């Protein structure tokens, strides 16, 4: 089945999310749509899937114009979608999730789950999936959960499958598995629309690549195009994909964690007796698949977790057990994982957000009153220094774009005397330009002789910035390796296979 979009336009107020987009997906083709966050990829796919209505334009399936006004129309037309965030009920079994919304009943109104079971087995056999229809979804690894979504689409006879950022949550091995599945689906005649911003995957699997920037199609290229060219098309200017790791001086250990254990509210250890150190002038990356204790470890370094055991020495001084305020002012800058939830007060102005940690210190305060003039003047300085794009420092911080929000957080955290920078997923959800900025800033801090602990699930980022890489798996640091490790070795470590190499 072929799918064609003709002159799709969608505006939200004065903002044009999709501007006359044309796209054609042939039968049995993997068509990648590449674009930055906010380029309009998701809007376009939501239109195709019937979640949004286009202002103008046509959708053609097998050369016939069809009307899609809700997802059930899309399903009937043979279009299935696997969302970035899975639409599964965690406590239901695989089979129960698959019949959801299409429940058929047998005698006396009993739910007919057997049909679904056999359908799942059939599809699994066809594609070589190993999915147990009676497994509870929340007990399955993320990669399998994704397969459940794909199976669901296939059972409802999707001929065009939309995969929205499918690799964001997967380990490198799971990603390879997914790419394999995509090729199998293609071989059996299913068309795939593959939405992503990861250049490597696109080049590996796509037949055709459409690049979207600011709501417009800016290029339709073949997978032979180089990564650098793809990135330039995506961003609209030449991009430095790998910041140069020039020689820098690595100093003495500045932060040492010994037997650090973090427990959750139920008392279970989510970080288990980890040992590591970071030297002055060094980037230690903590890699791992999301949810292996990295978030908790990062938070523990400023005593943000409630149950921490072990020791954290900052320049030889024990900081475990200090208040959060005490940890921050002892010399740790902290970029939290979620800037919206943990980094910023959305309704506060940019100026107010810049002093969240320093509001009760000179020069911002006189006695018990805030010096509004100083707060504004300092904010203006920070805005210049960190190139924060805004209308006025008195605007609510929630009006800024993701990249500028992150700059506010970084500007604030680096305005204290800093010994160690702890950055948790600092580029998540940012556009390429902002990612570049954050990377440069991290390297600048390193060059200035600070220790940097970078928590990241993005392998490319880890490889590009780190001097040493610690890999976390199920709350433990499996190994700490040199940055010249290969992708494959890192991938194995992230999947829990301990390396035989000697720790760096």
């Amino acid at each position, binding site marked *: 089945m072929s799918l064609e979009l003709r002159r799709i336009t969608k505006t939200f107020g004065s903002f044009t999310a999709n501007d006359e987009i044309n796209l054609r997906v042939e039968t049995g083709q993997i068509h990648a749509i590449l674009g930055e966050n906010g380029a309009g990829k998701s809007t376009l796919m939501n239109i195709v899937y019937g979640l949004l209505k286009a202002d103008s334009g046509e959708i053609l399936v097998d050369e016939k114009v069809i009307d899609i006004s809700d997802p059930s129309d899309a399903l009937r037309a043979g279009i299935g979608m696997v969302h970035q965030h899975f639409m599964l009920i965690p406590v239901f079994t695989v089979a129960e999730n698959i019949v959801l919304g299409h429940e058929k009943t047998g005698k006396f109104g009993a739910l007919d789950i057997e049909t679904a079971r056999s359908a799942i087995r059939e599809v699994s056999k066809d594609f070589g999936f190993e999915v147990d229809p009676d497994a509870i979804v929340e007990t399955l690894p993320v990669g399998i959960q994704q397969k459940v979504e794909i199976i669901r689409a296939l059972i409802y006879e999707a001929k065009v499958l939309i995969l929205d950022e499918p690799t964001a949550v997967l380990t490198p091995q799971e990603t390879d598995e997914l790419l394999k599945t995509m090729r199998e689906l293609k071989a059996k005649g299913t068309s795939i629309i593959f939405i992503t911003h990861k250049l490597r995957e696109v080049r590996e699997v796509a037949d055709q690549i459409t690049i979207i920037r600011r709501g417009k199609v800016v290029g339709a290229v073949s997978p032979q195009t180089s990564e650098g060219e793809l990135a330039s098309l995506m961003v609209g200017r030449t991009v430095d994909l790998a910041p140069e790791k020039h020689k820098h001086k690595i100093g003495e250990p500045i932060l040492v964690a010994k037997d650090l254990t973090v427990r959750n509210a139920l008392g279970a250890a989510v970080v288990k007796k980890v040992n590591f150190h970071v030297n002055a002038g060094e980037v230690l990356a903590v890699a791992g698949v999301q949810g292996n204790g990295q978030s908790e470890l990062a938070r523990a370094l*400023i005593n*943000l977790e409630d149950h921490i055991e072990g020791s954290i020495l900052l320049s030889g001084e024990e900081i475990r057990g200090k*208040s*959060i*305020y005490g*940890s*921050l*002012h002892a010399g740790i800058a*902290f970029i*939290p994982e979620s800037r919206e*939830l*943990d*980094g*910023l*007060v*959305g*309704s*506060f102005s940019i100026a*107010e957000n810049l002093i*969240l*940690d320093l*509001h*009760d210190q000179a020069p911002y*305060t006189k006695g*018990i*009153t*805030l010096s*509004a003039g100083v707060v504004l003047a300092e904010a203006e300085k920070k805005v210049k220094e960190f190139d924060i794009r805004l209308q006025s420092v008195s605007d*609510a911080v929630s009006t800024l774009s993701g990249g500028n929000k992150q700059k506010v957080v970084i500007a*604030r955290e680096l305005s204290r005397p800093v010994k160690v920078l702890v950055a948790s997923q600092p580029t998540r959800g940012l556009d390429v330009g902002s990612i570049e900025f954050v990377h440069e800033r991290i390297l600048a801090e390193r060059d200035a002789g600070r220790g940097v602990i970078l928590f990241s699930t993005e392998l490319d980022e880890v490889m590009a910035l780190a001097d040493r890489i610690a890999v976390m798996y199920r709350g433990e640091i499996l190994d700490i390796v040199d940055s010249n490790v290969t992708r494959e070795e890192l991938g194995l470590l992230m999947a829990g296979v301990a390396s035989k190499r000697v720790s760096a």
Partner: protein
Amino acid sequence: MRTSLAKFGQAIKLPGLSFALAFTLTGFTIAFSDAKVLSKIGSPLEFIKSAGATAGNAYLALFQGSIFDINLTKGHNFFQGFYPLSETIVIATPLILTGLSVALAFKSGLFNIGAQGQFIFGAIGASYVGFHFQLPIVIHVIAAALAGMALAAIWGGAVGLLKAKTGAHEVILTIMMNYIAGYFILWILKTSQFLRPGRIDPIAPEVNQSARLPLLAGANLRIHAGIFIALVAALFVWWLLTKTTIGYKFRAVGANGQAAKTAGISVPFVLTATMAICGALAGLGGAVQVLGSEHALNADIAGSFGFDAITVALLGRAQPLGTVFAALLFGALHAGGRTMQSNTGVPLDIVLVTQALIVLFIAAPTFVRFIFRLKKLNSSAGLTSKGWNG
């Protein structure tokens, strides 16, 4: 100046429209609940005339009972005509203070249902210092008010401390502590320390003359200096929230507690300090009620000041100035309602209906916007309490 005026206009637009809508609907309710009006339902013209007259009379009585009544000037000086306005302000005074207590808590993300109990402890403290000690004029009234505030601050602060230490929800804590306060005052009024000599009903001795707030407009009007205290308190809350580092912490925790915590702001401190200050405000309300208008502590001293405070704070969008206006409106409705009942026979409950409707429309801004086809503004909502999920 123009922009701030426009801002003010925007700020009162919604409450103003809710207000108008509530009064219109209440007008219908008054007309349709009147037997005389309903008897004329046969002839439409007569019916409309009669309905209009009935509702009009009721609202005239409401005005006469809350602001100015020309009839009261006969045989007195002109000022006596403002007796209703004086009553409005007397009722509004404690309500401003309890309203501020609830509003300030909202700003820190807390839902303070406990103004009633805090009010009671404020009244107890002020009353005891007022009748038990002999102190010089001015100093006595200040000492009595401070005693009430201190007691109530401890009572309120305990809630914040409990929430900070144990995670217990402030709504449950304050509701339960209202019960305790309500029964505590019944008990303490029966003790020999508090029971007025020669009385068996629960009433304390009158506070000494030196501990009373001065009357503002002569012996015939009840209006007292408490209103100035309330206005200064409103100014204080505004200053605290917008100009001080403590207020900054309050607002940060109220708007995003997680981000505030991550940046090193002590959430337990904010919870405790907020509830202590809220307690002091509501307690000052209780003190002012005793020292300004009641003069003697009785079991019913708190009336529903602590509960109406929630409505007042909501109506005032948790802003200090808004709370003052909302409290005055409630004072007027209370004072005028009595006159409305006695002059026109419209039951006092109708006033409660009006109050309820105003609050309903304020609480459902989308509905009012829909009715008046207003565009949704980027309103910086004043309320940040997270209710049950907080």
